[in-house]
């Protein structure tokens, strides 16, 4: 019909298809390549911004907090006069304990004065009282504990590492300057000059500060003595509670829901609710914990057991979601294979599906635990923000003793007036980050270990 006319007209070029050389890019290809290049650029920019933010965060925390791991101390001989510390003369700690820290403070003061005299340090305009004020109030308490633990020290001269107060420490960490000391009622330029002289003589120096990790919190006036001991123990106990409760409950619940439960409206509803629970703000769990565990069940406030229970509630949805995803990712052919040789449902799950899902389950679990470790808000509500000086005893009883927690300690320290606590808070953040990195490392190692089983 139209065949006769068609060959005469040149075939219309098909859109997007040019007869040109392969060596020159056509318009469409150029546009596509440009779009791809743009997309890559956006990606690189996003990653770049994230990296810069991360590095910035790390630098600011490190620069502010690393100094908390070193503390300015005076190393000096301290004579422990028997007539002041043990009037009865029988070295009985019970009677010696009547001497308060004030008595030990005087002993330290005398030791410092003697040291200055011996080294020929004289600072113009510095009274003896002011000079001895560079020693931390905590130092007397530490010396008292040491003597009461070992009464035979009385009457001898002991070599002691004596904490200096927060301002002197701050002077060597750049927080305090001669100019700021002029305006500061807590420290005078003369005291700083004394510190300089002691440092020049090698008796005052910054030393590694294990006490930051082991000692309990200290009062507002003694930032130099504040440590994370109780907070680390509290966090550890809470993690124990969370681990012991949330992992079995979460994993068992997911296995049941994923592999055994009938698929109906009711289980759909449960599924939706678990997903919603994972998105509930943590402070709501805190209120729930306060109402149920403390007000209703009568568990003690500030106790790791309550914190652990609240964090368990928070962690279970995370674990369930991760575990179900890991179970879903196991190819159904493995289940068929197991059922096909006559394994029961349970055998197919526990012999084949679960081992294959293990890496995913572990990763999810550890991410959940890491989240719980850093959680602050719910702990504030159940009283974990209290000032706790006593270490909780060993678990299991210890989980009922009052304790603090790492993130709450950070929050707590940032609320205090003395700028020395900013350093402490940054130091605590570093400790928290180290724990998180360790947990992630464990997750990676476990995952590798399990994945190696093909």
């Amino acid at each position, binding site marked *: 019909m139209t065949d006769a006319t068609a060959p005469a007209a040149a075939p219309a070029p098909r859109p997007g298809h040019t007869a040109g050389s392969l060596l020159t890019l056509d318009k469409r290809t150029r546009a596509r390549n440009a779009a791809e290049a743009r997309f890559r650029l956006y990606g690189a920019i996003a990653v770049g911004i994230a990296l810069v933010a991360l590095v910035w965060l790390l630098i600011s925390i490190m620069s502010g907090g690393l100094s908390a791991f070193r503390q300015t101390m005076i190393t000096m001989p301290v004579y422990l006069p028997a007539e002041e510390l043990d009037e009865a003369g029988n070295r009985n700690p019970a009677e010696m304990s009547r001497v308060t820290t004030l008595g030990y403070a005087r002993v330290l003061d005398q030791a410092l004065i003697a040291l200055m005299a011996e080294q020929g340090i004289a600072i113009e305009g510095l009274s003896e009282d002011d000079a001895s004020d560079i020693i931390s109030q905590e130092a007397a308490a530490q010396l008292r504990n040491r003597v009461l633990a070992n009464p035979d020290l009385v009457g001898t001269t002991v070599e002691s590492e004596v904490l200096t107060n927060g301002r002197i420490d701050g002077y060597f960490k750049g927080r305090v300057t001669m100019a700021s000391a002029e305006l500061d009622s807590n420290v005078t330029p003369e005291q700083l000059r004394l510190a300089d002289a002691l440092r020049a003589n090698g008796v005052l120096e910054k030393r590694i500060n294990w006490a930051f990790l082991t000692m309990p919190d200290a009062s507002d006036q003694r930032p130099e003595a504040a440590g994370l001991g109780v907070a680390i123990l509290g966090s550890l106990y809470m993690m124990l509670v969370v681990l012991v409760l949330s992992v079995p409950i979460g994993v068992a619940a997911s296995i049941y829901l994923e592999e055994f439960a009938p698929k109906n409206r009711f289980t759909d509803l449960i599924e939706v609710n678990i997903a919603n629970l994972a998105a509930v703000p943590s402070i709501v769990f805190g209120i729930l914990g306060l109402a149920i565990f403390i007000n209703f069940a009568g568990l003690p406030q500030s106790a790791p057991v309550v914190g652990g229970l609240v964090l368990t509630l928070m962690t279970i949805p995370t674990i369930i979601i991760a575990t179900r995803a890991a179970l879903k990712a196991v*190819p159904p*052919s*493995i289940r068929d*294979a*197991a*059922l*096909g*040789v*006559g394994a*029961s449902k349970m055998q197919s799950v526990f012999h084949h599906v679960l081992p294959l899902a293990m890496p995913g389950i572990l990763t999810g679990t550890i991410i959940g635990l890491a989240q719980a470790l850093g959680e602050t808000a719910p702990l504030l509500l159940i009283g974990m923000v209290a000032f706790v000086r006593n270490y909780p005893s060993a678990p299991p009883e210890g989980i009922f003793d009052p304790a603090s927690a790492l993130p709450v300690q950070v929050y707590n320290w940032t609320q205090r007036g003395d700028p020395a606590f900013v350093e402490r808070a940054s130091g605590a953040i570093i400790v928290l980050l180290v724990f998180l990195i360790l947990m992630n490392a464990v997750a990676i190692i476990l995952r590798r270990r399990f994945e190696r089983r093909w």
Partner: protein
Amino acid sequence: MNDMRLVERDVDATDIKIKARNVQVYYGASHAIKDVDVDILDKTVTAFIGPSGCGKSTFLRCLNRMNDTIDIARIEGQILLDGEDIYDKRVDPVQLRAKVGMVFQKPNPFPKSIYDNVAYGPKIHGLTRSKAELDEVVEKSLRRAALWGEVKDRLDKPGTGLSGGQQQRLCIARAVATSPEVLLMDEPCSALDPIATAQVEELIDELKQNFSVVIVTHSMQQAARVSQRTAFFHLGNLVEYGETGQIFTNPSDPRTESYITGRIG
């Protein structure tokens, strides 16, 4: 002596191993298998052929109750194994599947060692009393699956590291290890190359000495090569069932004829 065995086999061959009557399968509202009656003979290879989606796999999976794992599947009718209704309430599908083994379309070895793959069935069914006995079963099963020579030096290596054809033979060895009476195979060669296919076909031919084998296949040549009896399914109906030779040379139903001559596909 030899004669005796031959006679015995002849008698066995006429035994009905599985008798299906009036089987209906529904996936939710859709009716996937309609009114299927079939007698599967012992020590015989039975092939199920038919176009894609006609319900071959569905029916095969009824024979060892693998459809139980599909929530929406509903089965009606009667399937008797040696005269016992396998859908009776008292039947535990786990016990049934030890008797009616299955090999799947895609090779699906466990991500465990070759040895553990084969030993798994005997272990969970407590078929062996000692390690030595288990070793023996593993070796015998691998030999039956014509795999022993290739893997005997690496039994502790992962089964997933074998080639596709070897994996499928491993799956056959795994199914054979529990000494089933019936072996169901759902397109066992569809993921294999021609050489591996030939090996598996040869294997099926040997297996029929001990088992009743039911094989679903896409390839009519394969059905013709390995089976003695053939069932042709179409749109959920069993259209024709009989001697393989007769089905291929002289089908009685026009639908069968158009399928084997390539007009329905």
